[in-house]
C-alpha cells in the first residue's frame, strides 16, 4: 500500500452510537464511527478510522418490505423484537436499523404502538439502534418524540432529516440526546446546507451522520461515489460542516431489474451479490455504516471488511 498521503489537516468527528451501562444505557456495545484523517485505503494502515459497521434493516410492518427478504426469512418478520434478536445472534450484524413502516398506514394514529415496538426491539437486541421514523410531516413530531423517549439514554441514531423536514427529528434528538441521519440527494452542497440547518437549530456536529444517498450499483452509484469522495475531501481539507461520518444504505439493490427478473432458483444469490457489492463500494467510498436487508449479505460483508481492513474488528480498540 502507498505512503500515507500528505496531511490535509482535517479530521472526521466522532459520533457515539449506542450506550453501554457505563455510558448510561443498556446496550451491550457502543461504537464511535469517525476519526478519519485520510481517504480510505490511501494510508499506511488500511484506514485510520473504525472498520465499517454493518447494520441490518428490519421493520414493524413487513407488508412494506421486499418480498425477497420476507419470503427468505419467513414468519420471523412478523415478530419485530425476535427479528432484531436474530439479526444480532444469527446474522451477526453490528447494528439494527428499525423502520417504523407501520406509520405508513393511511391515517396512522396508534402512537402508543411505537413505544411498544421500540421497547420490544430494545429488549430483543443489545445492539445499538438506528430508528427510521415516519415519512409524513403531519405525524413526524409525535412519532419522533415517541422514538426519542423510548430510547432515552440509548444514544439512538434517528432518521431521517431532510432539508424540507428536519425540525421534528432534530427536536426529538436534542431532547433525548440522540444523533440524527442527515440525508440529501447526492450533492455535496445540499449535504452541507442540511448540516448547517441542523447546526443552526442547535444540533451538535457530533450528533450527526451524513447519508449522501446512494443509488444501487449500476443504477447511479457512480454519482454517489464521487459525491462521497468530494464530501470527504472537503471535510479533510477543513470544512467542519461536512466532517461527519457517513451512513449508507444499499437497499435499493433489492429492487433493481436484474434482481426482479432473476428466476426463483438464483434470486437470493443475485440479490445478495448486488447488496454486497453496493455496500462494499460504499464502504470504500468512505461510509462508516452500511445497511443491508438480506440476511446472507451480512456475514459476507463482515468477512470482506475483516480482511480488507487488516484484521481489525468492530468495537476493537
Amino acid at each position, binding site marked *: 500500500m502507498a505512503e500515507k498521503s500528505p496531511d490535509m489537516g482535517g479530521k472526521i468527528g466522532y459520533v457515539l452510537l449506542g450506550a453501554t451501562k457505563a455510558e448510561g444505557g443498556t446496550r451491550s456495545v457502543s461504537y464511535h464511527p469517525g476519526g478519519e484523517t485520510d481517504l480510505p485505503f490511501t494510508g499506511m494502515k488500511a484506514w485510520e478510522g473504525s472498520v465499517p459497521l454493518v447494520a441490518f434493516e428490519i421493520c414493524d410492518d413487513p407488508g412494506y418490505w421486499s418480498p425477497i427478504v420476507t419470503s427468505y426469512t419467513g414468519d420471523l418478520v412478523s415478530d419485530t423484537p425476535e427479528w432484531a434478536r436474530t439479526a444480532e445472534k444469527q446474522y451477526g450484524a453490528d447494528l439494527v436499523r428499525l423502520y417504523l413502516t407501520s406509520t405508513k398506514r393511511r391515517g396512522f394514529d396508534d402512537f402508543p404502538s411505537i413505544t411498544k415496538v421500540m421497547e420490544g426491539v430494545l429488549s430483543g437486541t443489545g445492539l445499538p439502534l438506528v430508528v427510521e421514523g415516519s415519512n409524513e410531516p403531519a405525524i413526524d*413530531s409525535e412519532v419522533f418524540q415517541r422514538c426519542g423517549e423510548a430510547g432515552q439514554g440509548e444514544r439512538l441514531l434517528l432518521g431521517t432529516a431532510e*432539508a*424540507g423536514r428536519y*425540525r*421534528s427529528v*432534530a*427536536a426529538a434528538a*436534542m431532547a433525548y440526546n440522540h444523533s440524527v441521519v442527515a440525508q440529501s440527494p447526492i*450533492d*455535496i*452542497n*445540499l449535504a*452541507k*446546507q442540511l448540516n*448547517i*440547518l441542523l447546526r*443552526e*437549530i*442547535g444540533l451538535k456536529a457530533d450528533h450527526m451522520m451524513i447519508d449522501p444517498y446512494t443509488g444501487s450499483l449500476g443504477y447511479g452509484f457512480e454519482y454517489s461515489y464521487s459525491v462521497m469522495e468530494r464530501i470527504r475531501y472537503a471535510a479533510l481539507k477543513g470544512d467542519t*460542516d461536512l466532517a461527519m461520518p457517513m451512513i449508507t444504505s444499499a437497499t435499493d439493490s433489492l429492487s433493481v431489474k436484474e434482481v426482479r427478473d432473476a428466476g426463483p432458483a438464483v434470486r437470493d444469490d443475485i440479490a445478495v451479490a448486488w447488496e454486497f457489492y453496493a455496500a462494499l463500494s460504499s464502504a470504500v467510498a468512505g461510509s462508516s455504516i452500511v445497511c443491508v436487508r438480506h440476511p446472507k449479505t451480512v456475514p459476507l460483508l463482515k468477512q470482506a471488511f475483516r480482511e480488507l481492513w487488516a484484521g481489525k474488528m468492530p468495537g476493537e480498540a
Partner: protein
Amino acid sequence: MPTITFLPSYRKITVDPGNTILDAIQRAQIQMNVVCGGQGKCGKCIVFIKGGTVEFDREKFGKFFTADELGQGACLACQAVVRDDLHVMIPESSLIQQQKILMESLGIETAFQPSVWKYYVVLSPPTLEDPSPDLTRLVWGVQKQGGPLAEKMYAPLDVLRGMPRVLRDSGWRVTATLALVPGGYRIIDLEKGDTRPGLYGVAIDLGTTTVVASIRSLVDGHVVGIASNYNRQISCGEDILSRVNFARKNGLPKLQALAAESINLAITSAANGAGIDLEDIYEVVVAGNTIMTHILLGIDPAYMIEEPYVPVVRRYLTTSAPRLGIEVAKNASVFLFPAVSDFIGGDIIADILASGMGERDEISLLVDIGTNFEVVLGNRDWMFSCAGAAGPALEGGEVLFGMRANPGAIERITIDPVTLESEFQTINSIKPVGICGSGLIDLLADLLRACVVDRTGRINTGIVHPRIRQGTHYPEYVIAWKSESGNNKDIVITENDIKNLIMSKASVLAACITLMKEAGITRTELSTIYFSGAFGNYIHKENAIMIGLIPEVPIEQIKNIGNGAVEGANMALINRKKRKTLDEIAKNIAYIELNAEPSFMDEYTGSSFLPHTDLSLFPGVQKMLDECRLKKSPLGVP
C-alpha cells in the same frame, strides 16, 4: 367581421374571426401586459368577457383564475379566440403601467470632443471675375472660419441638390453642419442664416423593457432633455426570447419598426420637453443588448439563441438614421455600440465606460441585473464577463404578489424581529397591491433576520403567529392584511416565491464567484462593486449582501452607476475618442460561458442558500445572523 368593444374605454375594433383577443388588443394599440409573448404560460393577460362568447379552454387555463373570476367570465386574451361580437373588460392590472425609471445618472468627467460641428459663413456671391462653383465657395468659407481643410470636405448629393437655392435665398449667409467620417468631413446639412445653437445629439439606451433618450447640446455638451418610455416591442413578448421567437415567425420587420418607434417616441418627448426641433439632432448613439441592436438594424437575431450562439456582428457600426427609421435630421448618423458576445452587448460596454473600471488598476466587479444579468470583473489590463438568466423573480415575476415598480408596489419593508409585524412603504404611498424587487430583497433579508425562514428559505411553520400560516399550496407570511391592501386581498409571500427568489439571487452570486475564481480574485481584492440599472438605485445594499445577491464587501465600496447604458452612450456621444476605444474594450473582455464551466453548478448550489453555504465569504452576515439568533429561540418546534 366581429366587432370587439373594449371596456372601460369603449374603444371598438373589428377583426377577422379566428383572431385572438390579444391580436385585437394589439391592433387597438392598447398596451397590454404580455409576459410570455402570448403562449398562455404567464397568466398575466387576464380579460373578462362581458358580452358575447369566445372559444377558450377553461379546463386547461383554469389554474390562472379563482372560481370567482371564472364566474365573471375571466379568460386569457392570448388564448381566447374571437368568433362573434364581444364586449371585453380589460382590468387595470392587465395593462402596462407607468413605471418608475431611473433618470439621474451620476456624472463622470469626460473630454468634450464631438464629431459634428456647425459653421456659420458669410460668402461673397459669384461674379464673372470669380466664377467658382457654389461648393468651392462654401468649403473655402468654412475653412476660413476655422473649419477643416477645404479639400477634406465633401457634400452628399442631396445636400448639393439643395445648395444653390439655400445659398441664394439666404443672401449667401448659411450654416453648414459637418460630420467627421472616415477620410474626411461630410457636409450633412446646409441651412439659411445662423443656426449654430441648434446642434444636438441624442444618446439612446435601447433596453428590452425600456428605452431612454438623453439629448445633449453638441455646442457645449450639456444635457438638455431626457425621457423614457416602454419598448413598444413588449406587445410582442416581454422577455428577449419571446422577441426572438416573434422575429422568427416573420415578425422581424414589425419588431424593427417598433424599436425605431420606441426610440422616436423617447426622442420626441425629450425634444418636446426641451423645446428642440428634431431636425436639429444630428447624431444618435445607441447602446443596447446584442439582440436589441440586431433587431434595430433589421438583422435576423435567430442564430444567437441557439447553439453555438453566434451574433452576426460584434463590432461597432455606423449607419444613417433614415435607414433605421429614426426621425431626426435626415443625414444624421447612428453609432451603435459593439458587443462582446450575444449575451454581453453594447449596453454592458456602455456600463464599463460609465463606471470607468476599464481605466483603473484596481479590480472592480460590475453587476447589471434585470431578467437577465451580466457580470464583468477586471481592471484596465484584463476583464472577464459572463451572463445568465436570473429569472423574473427579482423584478417581481414568478412571485404571487410580485409586480414591477408601479404605483402601489411595496418598495421598502422591515419586519420587527420580535413581534414579526411588518412596516412598509409603497410607490406613490398608496395602499399596497403587490411587492417589487427592492421590497422582495428587504423582505427576504428581514425574514431571515427574524428567523421566520431558515437559510434554505423555508418558512418555519412551527412559529405560532397570525402572519405565518399554511396557504393554499405553500406556507406563507402575510405582508399586509386585506384591510390595509389596495386590492382587497391579503398580500403574502409564499415559500415557493422565496424559492424562486433564491434561485434568482443564486445565479447572480454564483456568476460573480465563478468569475472571481476564474481570475483568482478574493472578495477582499475587490475595490468596488458597481450596480448598473435602476435596480441598484432602489435596493438596500445591506440587504442585498444579507441574502447573498452579491459578494460581501464594505457597503461604501458598492456604487450605483445608475443607467450605465445611457451614461456610457452619452460619453461616446460627446467624446468621439471614446468610440475608438470601444472595440478594443470589447475585444479584450473574455467571455466565460457559464454552462460550459463545470464549477458553476456547484457554485450555484452553494449560492442557493442564504447567503451562501460558505459563511466565511460573508463574515459580516455571519456576525449579524449570530446576533439575531441570540435574541431568538430558532428551533420553534411547537
